[in-house]
């Protein structure tokens, strides 16, 4: 299953992070937004798959997981991890962050508001939502584009040192560098766009 998803991700080259990118353009947000809005595909509903790797300093090998995701402007984000252990994450404006093993076991997560803000800000396409949190730098890219998001405050930087997002018509990869040295890499592929 894991290999299938990875292979499919590589073939399609699409990612949920397209909207993630849209929201993470700031000070230079206006500039980044206008250039990316022209390139990114606008959609009300997206479905796709993801492959995630977490690099934790005390572990010799990264923790790999994969699954499906959906994003709707009304319904928010659903992040369904299938391998190696099933779990579901649901984020929307009304309920915040909910997590559980399955849909009927979802419980409120006392998660940082900033996490919900980033997910929803990104996926709803509201770039300005994150302007208060990050500054954006455009980095050189061979194909498509690359952006680096750097927190404005040391308080946030303690948690998230930086976020690197890259893609073309859609977001293809997100690298989240944590303040303590741990790192999360996510590769996204969009399967359905409405």
């Amino acid at each position, binding site marked *: 299953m894991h290999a299938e998803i990875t292979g499919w991700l590589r073939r399609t080259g699409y990612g949920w992070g397209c909207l993630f990118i849209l929201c993470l353009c700031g000070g230079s947000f206006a500039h980044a937004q206008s250039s990316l809005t022209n390139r990114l595909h606008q959609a009300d509903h997206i479905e796709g798959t993801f492959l*995630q790797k*977490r690099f*934790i*300093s*005390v*572990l*010799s*090998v990264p*923790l790999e*997981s994969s699954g499906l995701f959906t994003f709707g402007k009304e319904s928010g984000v659903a*992040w369904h*991890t299938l391998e*190696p*252990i099933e*779990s579901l*994450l649901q*984020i929307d*404006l009304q309920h915040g*962050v909910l*997590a559980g*093993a399955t849909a009927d076991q979802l419980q409120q*997560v*006392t*998660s*940082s*508001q*900033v*996490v*919900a*803000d980033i*997910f929803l800000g990104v996926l709803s396409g509201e770039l*300005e*939502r994150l*302007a*208060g*949190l990050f500054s954006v730098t455009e980095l050189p890219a061979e194909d498509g584009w690359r952006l680096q998001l750097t*927190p*404005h*405050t*040391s*308080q*946030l930087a*303690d*948690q998230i040192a930086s976020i690197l997002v890259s893609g073309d018509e859609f977001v293809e990869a997100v690298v989240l560098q*944590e303040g*303590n*040295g*741990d790192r*999360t890499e*996510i590769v996204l592929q969009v399967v359905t766009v409405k």
Partner: protein
Amino acid sequence: MTKNNTLKILISAFWVTALFCAAIFCCVRIAGGNAFESNIMVLVPSTDEARPQLAEDTNLQKGFLVLIKHPDRNVGRQLATEFHDTLVSQAGVEKESDPAALLESLRQFFQPYRYQLLSREMQEKLSTQSPDVIAEEALRALYSPVQGLQLYSLSDDPFNLGGTWFQSLYPQAAQISPEIIPALTEGGNTWYLVRARLQESPFSISSQSAVIPVVEDFRQRWPDAMLVTSGFVFHAAEATATARGEISTVGLGSLLGIALLVVIVFRSGRAVLAIITTLTGSVLFALAGSLFVFDQIHLITLAFGSTLLGLSVDYCFHFLVKSRRLGSGLVAGRLIAKGLAISAGSSILVYLMQLFSPFPGLRQFAVFVMFGLLGAWLTIVFLAYWYQDSPHQKGFRELALYRLVQSFYLPAASRKTLVISLSVLIICAAGLQIFRSGFSDDIRLLNTSSNTLIADEIQVMSLLGGIDTQRYWTVVGENQQQVLQSTEQLVSVLRPDIQVMAVSDLIPSQQQQQQNHQLVMEKLYGPDGALEKLCALMTTDCTLWQDGDFSFRSGLTPDVVPPIIAGAFPVFAVSDPNHSIVLPLQGQQLDGGRTFLFPGANGVSFVDMVGELSDTMAGFRTQVSWLLTLFLLVFSIACLLLYRTKGIAVVSSVFISLCAAIALSAPDAITLFHVLALLLVTGLTIDAAIFYRELGFNSDSWLAASLATATSILAFGLLALSSVPVLQQFGVIVASGLACAWLVTPLFHLLVKSGSFEEIQ
């Protein structure tokens, strides 16, 4: 040199010296910049000083918060940033400590102890769940892109004990977005939280001047934006503005009224000068005396004290009317000397009663007015030697007025049965009023904050939570560990029903830390614990995790907590090795607070500041009522002894005026401030009745009494317009009591004298 001249020089020298010294003393104290106070809390009695007191902790009072919202989130952020920068650039305002620095301090300080600090939820979870279940849940969290609130990295704390513990301390922490100006999203709206701190007390005028103009300027410039305030400084500034406004209204109103009356009645520059001299002497003596007795005078005292202008000028009116008639200040002075002495003496005696009040504010007011009356009395004595007026005959208008008075009072005095029946009716109405409306000792009468400001506080509370500083539990013990253990016991009893904040949440007792550590080792890091299960599930090498140092660390006690952390938790501000405090979060029903005391809870007590103050007010109301009754009894006997049957006129005037004041002015309930106002009505009515008794009811005494009543009613009538309930109640009752006294005092005088009107020609 004649005896009179010697006396004149001696009295004048004494008066001028005393006035000069009072003026210099006032100037020095006021120039020192610390003569006045606006903190409403200093007006109410302080509670048991031995127990922890949160409300008076000045460090907590210095912080304040402003929430800014704009329909456009980005504009809101920009406005909040500009507002914050403007605010902290003001002298006397500084940035609030950086939340990142606090978080880092928390992280570093508690890091060695992270395996012995557990939230209540985590304690329950570890007690009830198996290591397998805990491991599976931890595995899901590891693969989730969204982590819960974390204090330590996954490497240091794979089960996020630190995050859940911190979350339990700061339930709102996860809701606040760490932007440059922290933001809070609620119902689709984003509020920006501007926090700042005053260098001085929020009750100092300089602190208020630094903050309030910035807030007002923002509101004017950005009408689309919404600004909500929270903090002592805003309430103190409003109280200051209210007091200032009322000092201006009452003081200026009294002065204008007095000036107008003097010009209309006396039409003399000398009379105006005499009035100004009396007022100056009275106010300077009052201020100097109060500043001598007290370190600071409250602005509310000054607002109350403004009514002194109306009182002190009464003596001057009696003096001026007599001087004008007799053409000699000295003769007039001698004529009114006895009446003046009895009148001022009895009024001072009435105010002396307030010195026994547990309310510092009332003691201040009593001292202020006592010294003011003394100053007015001395000034009249001084004026008697210097004031000269040519003998004056009544003009046509005055005679017409007196005839009008005669035509009312003389026929009325001849109908004794009617007057007595009306008097009985007034007494019955007062009795009915007391029976119907009962008494109220609600402490909110002392509130000077507007509804807008209170609504702001409620809104901030609903967004960010808050603690109740008026009702809480205190724990007393022989040593720190005993206090912590008792606090933990109390919290465990309270928590199912009431959310609280306690020192033991942050620093548990050593016993609790040992129990937590034991649970953590058993369920998480020990053999067959959740960490082993987790590593097995991940099929990866967990050696670094498993080789961690999980040993128990002793030494985590409240006295080693760094100041930056202690300062962020109000419970630390009032805790010491022998005391701790448990504060309920805002918005909870605590009526049964006392019932939560568990059996055998030695040293635990519930404090209800609001209830205690209301009890104090009730006690003082009863005490003053009895004192007033006693005074009236003694005064009645003294009058009857001094004036025989004619004393009945004085006593009846006082009783009927008091009853009329009660009947007309306490529609809801009788409060302490109504009773205190009755003291004033008593004093003023005695003044009028004594002067009639001493000088007779004639055109001069009636004119002087009418002028005195008019100025007093003017002063107290203006107090009745006050927005502060205390002042308003005081004003209404005194104004109606005086109006009644003005009407009935001549009537009773004539009744007893069998209707003779002693015209002096």
